């Protein structure tokens, strides 16, 4: 086993498009859970509607920019669907409806036929050709040795990390604004905020929708990076990975989600590569080195 290769692969994953997508996911969740105190257990559903909004639109012959727009609108609608009935009630209701809603949506998308809008279990592939067609980087390898990206990966990574930077700046500005102060007061004591005449329901709904749209972009990045969407990418466990990333980096901190995502992906890929190496080197008796199919997709 070459430890240098393992470390290099881990670094590549953590600064690559997936690391950025997880950072974006956690930024959205940070707005929900970190700043507003919303217990959103169906966060992965926002990624799903973002990815599917884009994929379905392009698949049906729409232009790519329209696909992005549809993804964003779908996330807004999902936020309203989750939020409108539940945000007036105890926190439990939002938790129940989001976890159930995400899973039901996935089941419905999954149950379509191959020819249906969503492609059912087959998903949709090859919808981001326009995106890669706009790649400004000439063909080739960028980086050093094992730590190199192809021009396609680099293009996705640059766009993704730009989005992360944008979202981070946006969130810092939002949280420092009077709007953000109200959000934090809701997190600390909802009744106190209400007694000062703030429309707590509206603020919570705005927070849910904004964070959801940020997560929808994360879903688009994951989908574009792979050129495919598949319902089983969006298992409920994905939401809890986002929580892990957020809590690892620091809840309600500005750079927490970004740091959390990078560290998480480094640790994940490092453990993965290390164990694989250890197994093929025969250090772990009785284990087979067959790659588990679901490890990456969650």
């Amino acid at each position, binding site marked *: 086993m070459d430890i240098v290769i393992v470390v290099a692969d881990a670094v590549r994953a953590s600064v690559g498009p997936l690391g950025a997508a997880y950072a974006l996911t956690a930024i959205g969740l940070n707005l929900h859970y970190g700043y507003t105190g919303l217990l959103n257990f169906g966060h992965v559903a926002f990624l799903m509607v973002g990815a599917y909004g884009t994929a379905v639109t392009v698949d049906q012959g729409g232009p790519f920019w329209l696909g992005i727009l549809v993804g964003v609108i779908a996330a807004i609608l999902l936020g309203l669907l989750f939020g409108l009935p539940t945000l007036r009630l105890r926190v*439990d*209701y939002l938790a129940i409806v989001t976890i159930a809603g995400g899973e039901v949506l996935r089941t419905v998308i999954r149950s379509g036929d191959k020819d249906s809008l969503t492609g059912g279990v087959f998903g949709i592939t090859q919808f981001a050709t326009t995106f890669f067609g706009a790649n400004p980087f000439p063909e080739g390898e960028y980086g050093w040795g094992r730590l190199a990206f192809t021009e396609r990966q680099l293009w996705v990574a640059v766009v993704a990390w730009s989005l992360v930077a944008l979202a981070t700046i946006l969130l810092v500005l939002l949280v420092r604004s009077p709007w953000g102060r109200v959000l934090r007061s809701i997190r600390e004591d909802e009744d106190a905020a209400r007694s000062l005449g703030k429309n707590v329901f509206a603020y919570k709904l705005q927070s849910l929708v904004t964070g959801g749209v940020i997560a929808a972009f994360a879903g688009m990045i994951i989908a574009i990076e792979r050129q495919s969407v598949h319902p089983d990418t969006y298992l409920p466990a994905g939401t809890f990975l986002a929580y892990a990333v957020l809590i690892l980096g620091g809840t309600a901190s500005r750079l927490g989600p970004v740091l959390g995502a990078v560290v998480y992906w480094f640790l994940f890929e490092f453990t993965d590569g290390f164990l694989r190496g250890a197994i093929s080197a025969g250090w772990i008796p009785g284990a087979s080195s067959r790659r588990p199919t679901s490890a990456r997709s969650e």
Partner: protein
Amino acid sequence: MADGLRLGLVLAVASVGLSLIFGVTGLTNFAHGELVTFGALVAYFLSASGVVPEIPLVAAGILAVVAGAGFGWAHETILFRPLRRRKSGNVSLIVVTIGLGLFLRNAYLILFGGRPRPFDEFTIQTAVDLGPVSLRPKDLVVMAVGACALLGVGLMLQRTRLGRGMRAVADSRDLAAASGIDVDRVILAVWVGGAALAALGGVLQGVSETVETDMGFGLLLLMFASVILGGLGTAYGAMVGGVLIGLASQVSTYWLSPKYRIGVALAVLIGAILVRPQGILGRRERVG
């Protein structure tokens, strides 16, 4: 329609515990589905796995319910009572139950494997005609057992001291404690009883369909829908809600593809929260 009634009764049996646990402790137990799976798995293990000497399914089912009760007892004494003593917040308790649910589901997967398996007995039966409907005899048994269990729970809640205690604690914990009810004992009884009912629900569901490691999680969403529709924290509400959700999701298959069944349940859930958040039998409470 008859099949909907069957599913509804199973849901009602399984979700009474969920609702009562919420009622007496304020805890939303996201691991309740795993209690359901537990019952089905124990019954399968005892009656059809071949690892231990096989016993008839009926005996295995009874043992599974007893084991489920023990599992609920362990939940309360090992995990939730210490956490309550430490005055953990509502949100951290929810996170604990979700983590517990994930852990149990994967533990089941390791022990049991991912393949759905039916019980050995009563696998293939021909339907009998009963006037307008035709049903498999085993579904009739499932419905009868479910109805009897619900009747028993209702009688227990109405007539016995313990049952009155449960309703009192669910109504107002402080008032119940002030009038001399041992709240901790009632909570323990609710965990034991609720988990036993959940295990029974799992056995019944396993008899009508198959035993799977994630059957409980699939049912959990329907159970939440039933409990909220009926009124969070009320035992009778969970029963009514369960039957209604079962009927609604089955009847909808007349117009919609059966694949969207679970979507119908969610639509009912969201509609119920919008129109009547306290549920059919719940009491109106001011939240904001």
